[in-house]
């Protein structure tokens, strides 16, 4: 694994010619940098869609049954006269989760940052398969079109939860079929991306770039690609089986004797309801790590740069990611403790789940170790990366509650779970994505984002995020189930309305605060101060070329790598950073002598 990759120069006549036409340059581009920015815009647009769906969900939870006049015009079927129907509410949270997970978080972390950063970080001129890379992106586009389109078909969009448990998902209206087709297409896109990343990272590393000199972002995306490659086919198989149950009359998930609304369900029999859950969560738990590992990598990248200090325990960081990847495949049953699965099996999954907390703990302590005795600069990327660390701690620790099988009996399917997942996916993944955006923006667009407005955006997001999501743990502790259209039906939940209102109002502020990011993003493209090649004084290879990098990333030969990625504040070296490709000069030679 640690052998030096062969230099690319041998067969370098250009990976692909520089495009000349507008279409080949900006639309059907094979350049990983353009594709990365395409993914970024794709993911940010879907983030807006997913966020708007969430505000509707929270509106209903704050003021159950209060009409919203303008929505009566936008969605006359789901909200006639502005009054939200329960099935529309079910669609809203189903689509919120689906869009955020598959169309926002995954594309921004893997599609955008992975595509843009990985080839440059390893000193490659492009991905191993540039045309396949273009195909990945353009396959993901119809998937997004179909999922949005499903809102407008009869019966509305899928309403069975993002987990789409059978048999409910088998008997839902047409929107569910579109959901299945969309995710099947998107799964193909992710699979192609995974193959491309693995091949690129294994084969195209610059001379001297051994595996243990890889920046941790690349390490994280390597492991992520491996998880995608092994987990996604299982999801695709399950999706196809459910699709067949819906349109071809098969009964993979439909047991005998199914009676729906007083009618015997046609040709049900022989199916297993829990089979869907096993298949779904065999994919679904690695999926959680697919969404958090890249953000962990970004955080591990940014902390050393702004603490001006090597990462603490580089190898421990890499090994713990491998540990997470391995263990991630044997914990899926913890989503099914109350499903009727054999309780003895539940104990087994509880033990593996408790063990998987350990690598995450190791990472957290190493991040603290990186900050210890550093020289910390509070830039916007750093603030977001630090928020990742502190919020991920909450998300990780709340996971211990549901790992414990008896405690899970009570909190399973309550808002406690919703709080947990948002601390991991918003507090973790999304803050990691914000950190990456602020960090690599100068590289992508050649200009700096506005630091002051970046900090204002961070402060608003940090405070309101906690106001929206921390109280969810309290709702769960009172027994408020998730996916509930109107909790005021229950007398034991009625007292929770004021808290729900506070959370919803905080969400409105959180949403409004994102306008600052959007403006900063677009205005800085023209107005931001020029970044120069290395505005953060960082070591990794993407900062040793111009911003944005030229066609094929490096002028002349690809760089040769002499050292690890986080050599900050090395004694005896002239400056407090030491680029990976800087040849050992007389100063360094003296220090080593």
């Amino acid at each position, binding site marked *: 694994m640690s052998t030096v990759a062969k230099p690319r120069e041998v067969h370098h006549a250009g990976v692909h010619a520089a495009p000349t036409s507008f279409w080949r340059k900006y639309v059907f581009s094979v350049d990983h940098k353009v594709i990365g920015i395409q993914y970024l815009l794709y993911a940010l647009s879907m983030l807006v869609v997913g966020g708007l769906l969430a505000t509707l969900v929270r509106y209903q939870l704050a003021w159950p*049954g209060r009409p919203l006049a303008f929505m009566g015009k936008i969605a006359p079927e789901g909200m006639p006269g502005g009054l939200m129907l329960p099935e529309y509410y079910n669609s809203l949270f189903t689509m919120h989760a689906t869009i955020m997970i598959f169309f926002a978080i995954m594309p921004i972390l893997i599609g955008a940052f992975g595509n843009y950063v990985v080839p440059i970080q390893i000193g490659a001129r492009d991905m191993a398969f540039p045309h396949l890379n273009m195909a990945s992106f353009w396959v993901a586009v119809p998937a997004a079109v179909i999922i949005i389109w499903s809102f407008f078909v009869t019966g509305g969009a899928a309403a069975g939860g993002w987990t789409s448990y059978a048999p409910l998902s088998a008997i839902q209206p047409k929107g569910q079929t579109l959901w299945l087709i969309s995710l099947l297409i998107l799964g193909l896109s992710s699979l192609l991306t995974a193959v491309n990343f693995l091949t690129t990272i294994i084969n195209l590393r610059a001379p001297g770039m051994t595996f243990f000199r890889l920046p941790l972002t690349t390490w994280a995306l390597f492991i992520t690609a491996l998880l995608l490659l092994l987990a996604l086919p299982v999801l695709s198989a399950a999706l196809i089986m459910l699709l067949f149950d819906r349109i071809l009359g098969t009964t993979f998930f439909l047991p005998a004797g199914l009676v729906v609304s007083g009618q015997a369900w046609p040709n049900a029999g022989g199916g297993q309801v829990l089979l869907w859950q096993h298949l779904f969560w065999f994919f679904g738990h690695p999926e959680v790590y697919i969404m958090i590992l890249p953000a962990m990598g970004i955080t591990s990248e940014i902390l050393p740069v702004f603490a001006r200090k090597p990462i603490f325990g580089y190898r421990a960081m890499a090994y713990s990611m491998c540990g997470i990847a391995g263990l991630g495949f044997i914990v899926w049953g913890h989503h099914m403790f109350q499903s009727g699965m054999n309780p003895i099996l539940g104990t087994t999954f509880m033990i593996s789940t408790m063990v998987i907390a350990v690598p995450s703990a190791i990472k957290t302590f190493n991040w603290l170790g990186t900050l210890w005795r550093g020289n910390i600069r509070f830039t916007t990327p750093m603030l977001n990366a630090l928020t990742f660390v502190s919020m991920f701690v909450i998300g990780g620790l709340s996971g211990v509650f549901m790992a414990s099988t008896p405690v899970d009996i009570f909190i399973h*399917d309550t808002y406690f779970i919703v709080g947990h997942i948002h601390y991991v996916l918003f507090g973790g993944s999304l803050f990691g994505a914000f950190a990456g955006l602020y960090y690599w923006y100068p590289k992508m667009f050649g200009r700096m984002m506005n630091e002051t407005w970046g900090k204002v955006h961070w402060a608003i997001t940090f405070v309101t995020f906690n106001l929206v999501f921390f109280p969810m743990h309290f709702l769960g502790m009172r027994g408020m189930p998730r996916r509930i259209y109107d909790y005021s039906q229950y007398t034991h939940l009625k007292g929770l309305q004021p808290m729900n209102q506070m959370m919803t109002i905080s969400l409105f502020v959180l949403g409004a605060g994102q306008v600052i990011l959007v403006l900063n993003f677009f205005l800085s493209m023209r107005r931001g101060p020029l970044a120069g090649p290395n505005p953060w004084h960082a070591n990794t290879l993407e900062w040793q070329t111009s911003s944005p990098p030229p066609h094929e990333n490096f002028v002349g030969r690809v760089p040769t790598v002499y050292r690890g990625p986080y050599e900050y504040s090395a004694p005896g070296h002239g400056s407090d950073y030491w680029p990976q490709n800087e040849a050992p000069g007389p100063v360094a030679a003296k220090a080593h002598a």
Partner: protein
Amino acid sequence: MKNTNRFPRAARLLRAALFFSAAALAPAAAGALPFWLRLPEQASTYAPEVDRLFHLIMWITGVIFVIVEAMLLLFLWKYRHREGRVATYTHGNNRLEVVWTIIPAVICVMLALLSRRIWEDIKEHMPHDALEVHVTGEQFAWNFRYPGPDGKFDTPDDILTLNQLHFPVGKPVVVTLTSKDVIHSFFLPEFRVKQDAVPGMHSRIWFEGNKVGHWEIACAELCGLGHFRMKGFVTVDTPADYEKWLAEQAAEQAGEQKQATVPAATDVKPVSAPAAGERRAGVEAEQSGGSAPERVAEKGGNS
């Protein structure tokens, strides 16, 4: 060595942080917390055991949380950039790596062992001599079946109720759960009971009421558009009241049977039988009277 005095100072700060967090959490013991910081009332015999585990995990994770966040803030403040500061050049410490791998591993395994015992008691070992009830979920109601005077299920003297579960205090109840259509989840928050009702499966759980009272049953698994109003009621009676209620149900049912001559009891009966069908519609109309739009009651199921 100018660095040695850094540690006592950090330790002092850590002690202070622990002290303040302990002080802040102390009212939990006194029960002076607002309702939303407390777990619901404990109505089953094992609810206190589950809650003890919950609070133990809360204390352990709470202390870890405070230590980690305090260290984070301490480092951010202490090692913030100032002119002339130089970061310490270190790549890590293997001894520390071993320490902070083993400590979380030990805590987690300990929690797993503690959890295992309680989990076995609740989900694996069914009590003997228990009252048996069969529960069938359907969109969007709970059907309860008591064995009736002959003590056997699926005989004509079975007692059927809709959304009403009664049992006597101080006697374990074993519930066999299934569903007609989609997955539901039988959730009694005050009893710390939750178990999915899965079509094609019969899952068994038990619980024992430790006080007389009246609470709600929620459906905790998304089951369609009426999921939010799939509400039932649980009443824990004194043994005498329970016998009285059971006799009333039996008498009422005998009266209904004479009128409607319902065919032999099967699991499908409550929907297909006209009497039960009417009752179900009645319940729906009553329950959708709140803020739920009228259309919910009109649309029976999906697609």
